């Protein structure tokens, strides 16, 4: 093993501004801006406050779960089960609320607890079996979906609690729609946890070099289980927003949403191998996907194509993150 020689500091000249842009992950901010300008020209409706509130609402689910997924990916793991977890949490919340007289707090607690539970099982199996988390969560993707379909008999469950609907779906706080408020709360919470807390340091270290983290006295198994649990819980919160908005919990909700969530996080600059990434990046990634979907809609592009575009975004995000590594 030859020693790494110190590289000369890269001077910030126009010449390598492009490389700096890629290296620092600044490209996505430029990308978001460029997308918005392009759509602003292509559609007169795009650049309106109403449409922006729309985008915020539409991206809520992905943004909330992207906060959790960012933690998981920075920690060096993956969670493919978030879509099913969201459906299962929503279904459980709706069913229990029916049983206890439509108390919103019961629904909220049950949804968050269900999500956290699925996440914790994912985490425990991953660390105890020492298996790749994407395989474990591929299993739970199916299990959670199956259970959601089973307990509902594949039919949607109606939600009658007005409080519930207002708090998570349709209310406003100082003029801001609650889904957006919840997104902001999660983002700030995520930023504090990841960038300002001691635990955040442990997440970064575990993802950056698990062995070194372990040798430094960090309980890496605990860190992994916790981040996966948090992601599950945020999937539960996403379920609250979704079910409140649609006044019903559908067992087939959220299929394939893991694609958006993972794309958002990788687009936001998280390294695939773990150890780097930011919450703000994940949020911007999610907004890019949202703006793209919204813009393509306004311009009148086939919704089927949008699915393909999501896949292409993942490829693009991977290509970008590879550039960053070099």
């Amino acid at each position: 093993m030859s020693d790494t020689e110190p590289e000369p500091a890269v001077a910030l000249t126009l010449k390598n501004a492009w490389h700096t842009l890629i290296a620092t992950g600044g490209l996505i901010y430029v990308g978001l801006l460029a997308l918005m300008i392009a759509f602003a020209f292509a559609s007169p409706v795009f650049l309106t406050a109403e449409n922006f509130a729309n985008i915020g609402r539409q991206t809520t689910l992905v943004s909330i779960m992207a906060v959790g997924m960012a933690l998981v990916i920075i920690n060096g793991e993956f969670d493919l089960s978030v879509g099913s977890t969201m459906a299962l949490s929503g279904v459980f919340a709706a069913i229990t609320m029916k049983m206890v007289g439509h108390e919103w707090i019961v629904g909220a607690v049950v949804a968050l607890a269900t999500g956290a539970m699925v996440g914790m099982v994912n985490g425990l199996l991953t660390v105890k079996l020492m298996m790749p988390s994407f395989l474990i969560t591929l299993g739970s993707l199916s299990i959670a979906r199956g259970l959601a379909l089973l307990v509902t008999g594949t039919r949607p469950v109606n939600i009658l609690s007005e409080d519930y609907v207002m708090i998570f779906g349709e209310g406003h706080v100082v003029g801001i729609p609650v889904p957006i408020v919840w997104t902001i709360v999660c983002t700030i919470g995520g930023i504090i946890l990841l960038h300002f807390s001691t635990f955040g340091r442990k997440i970064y270290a575990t993802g950056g070099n698990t062995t070194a983290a372990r040798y430094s006295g960090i309980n890496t198994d605990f860190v992994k289980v916790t981040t996966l649990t948090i992601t599950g819980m945020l999937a539960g919160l996403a379920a609250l927003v979704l079910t409140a908005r649609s006044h019903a919990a559908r067992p087939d909700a959220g299929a394939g949403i893991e694609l958006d969530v993972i794309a958002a996080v990788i687009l936001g600059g998280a390294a695939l191998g773990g150890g780097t990434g930011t919450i703000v990046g994940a949020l911007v990634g999610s907004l890019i996907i949202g703006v793209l979907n919204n813009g393509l809609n306004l311009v009148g592009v086939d919704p089927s194509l949008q699915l393909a575009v999501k896949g292409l975004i993942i490829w693009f995000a991977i290509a970008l993150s590879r550039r960053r590594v070099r």
Partner: protein
Amino acid sequence: MMSGSVSDPIGTSAGPAEEARSTPPLIELDGVVKHFGNVHALRGVHFDLRPGEVHALLGQNGAGKSTLIKIFAGVLDKDSGTIRIEGRETAFKSAAAARTAGVAVVYQELSLVPSMRVADNLFLAREPGRFGLVNRRKLVADARRFLEEQGLPLNPTARVEHLPFAYRQLTEIAKALSGEVRVLVLDEPTSSLSRGEEEILFDAVRKVSRQGVGVIYVTHRLEEVFKLSDRVTVLRDGANVGTFATSDVTMEQLVGSIVGPSGTGAASSKSEDYERAPPSETSQPVIELVDVNNDRLNGVNLAVQAGEVVGLAGMIGSGRTEILESIFGLRRIASGELRIDGENRKVRAPIQAIGLGAGLVPEDRHLQGLVLDHSIERNVALPRLDRLDFFGLFRRRESKARARAAINGLSIVAPSTGTRAAELSGGNQQKVVFGRWSDPTPRLLLLDEPTVGVDVGAREQIYEVVRTMVANGASALIVSSDLGELLMLTDRIAVVAGGRVVDVMPVSEIRNEEHLHQIVQEAQA
């Protein structure tokens, strides 16, 4: 006529030694120089290998052996000097070029597919057969015949992953030999073998050399040199000390030339520049291991007094590192006691060891020490995260101050605390690993090869850091292959072999580095 036979090692056996002398050497190096930045790894090395001989290559860590091997393998290119293969000048530009020239380097477990059988591995990517189909029967038969010809006691249908370690090593050798091989390079092949397994390997090496192949045998163990080799070349600080016929040298002479003149005086110079009160014999040991057993240790007994520095001397694979790992909670202790301040403790995880006041500087800083992608500040904070915690929030400013203190205190050359660890030189990286333990100073420092891959200047600074920590009340347990370093830093030396502490002696009883070298060699036997 010679070239025909050596290019086909399976064919008729090569001529006897007299004939070999009349032909040009198989491989000849002249004035080979290699730098890494401003570190001179090789400063004009000469080396030659004759057909059919076993040529041992000796030297301490950092003497240039591994660089030389990499040049043989074509992994590294020399900066200047010449390499001649059978008298013709060659330059290896790649591993493939070296291989084509007939040079095969046996790495440890690098070139085998564990889930495949021995025969499959031998003929990997050149299986006998037609139309893309493998003739499995012929494959096994060919492999069996080849192994019998080479005299290697291997079952061609055994899966590699089920083989004991020595036989995997043999498979590596067999695989290396299965092409057109004139030069076989073995890099510390016995470092993880047991006694009996070694003999199997030695037999194989002898048989191979009898076929006319030249064998370059790199080792730390001097007894092997005498058992196996015809000639021996010693390197020190990237230059030749000498090449001897094995029959003409004694072990003392070899040790002397490996260690060099500076080593002979090391023990005496030590007491001068390193003065402090000797730890009192009556004090309670900070840490004591009583009959500690696990998968790699066989009843280790060892005690470190407060303020004492104990060195662990032994071969790679002797259990030195495992002793540190067992103390630090990285390796489960199956039976025996680990007493800290006289109290029996069960340390199951590093966090507990750290809580009890231990700090480890691991052997491989890239793999076990640092998160290379992260900043100095992040790395320095790692083992102290819980101390930098304020109701769940991370005290960033304090962590930065700590990192800055570490940079200043250890003279780490870096633009800021935000510099990525990957951008630092080896010495500075190692200082960052030390910096993690600088505040507060641990009560027991566990250092595993603290200066490996570190240049001379940084090495002195690291010694200074260790001394300062000890002066501040730390005890230390140091593993090092650099025996001079052990003599310089420690109060007592524990000799480790076969997963046990064989002997403990005060440094004052050791005459010099040469003497310690001999003690270690004898403990092995």
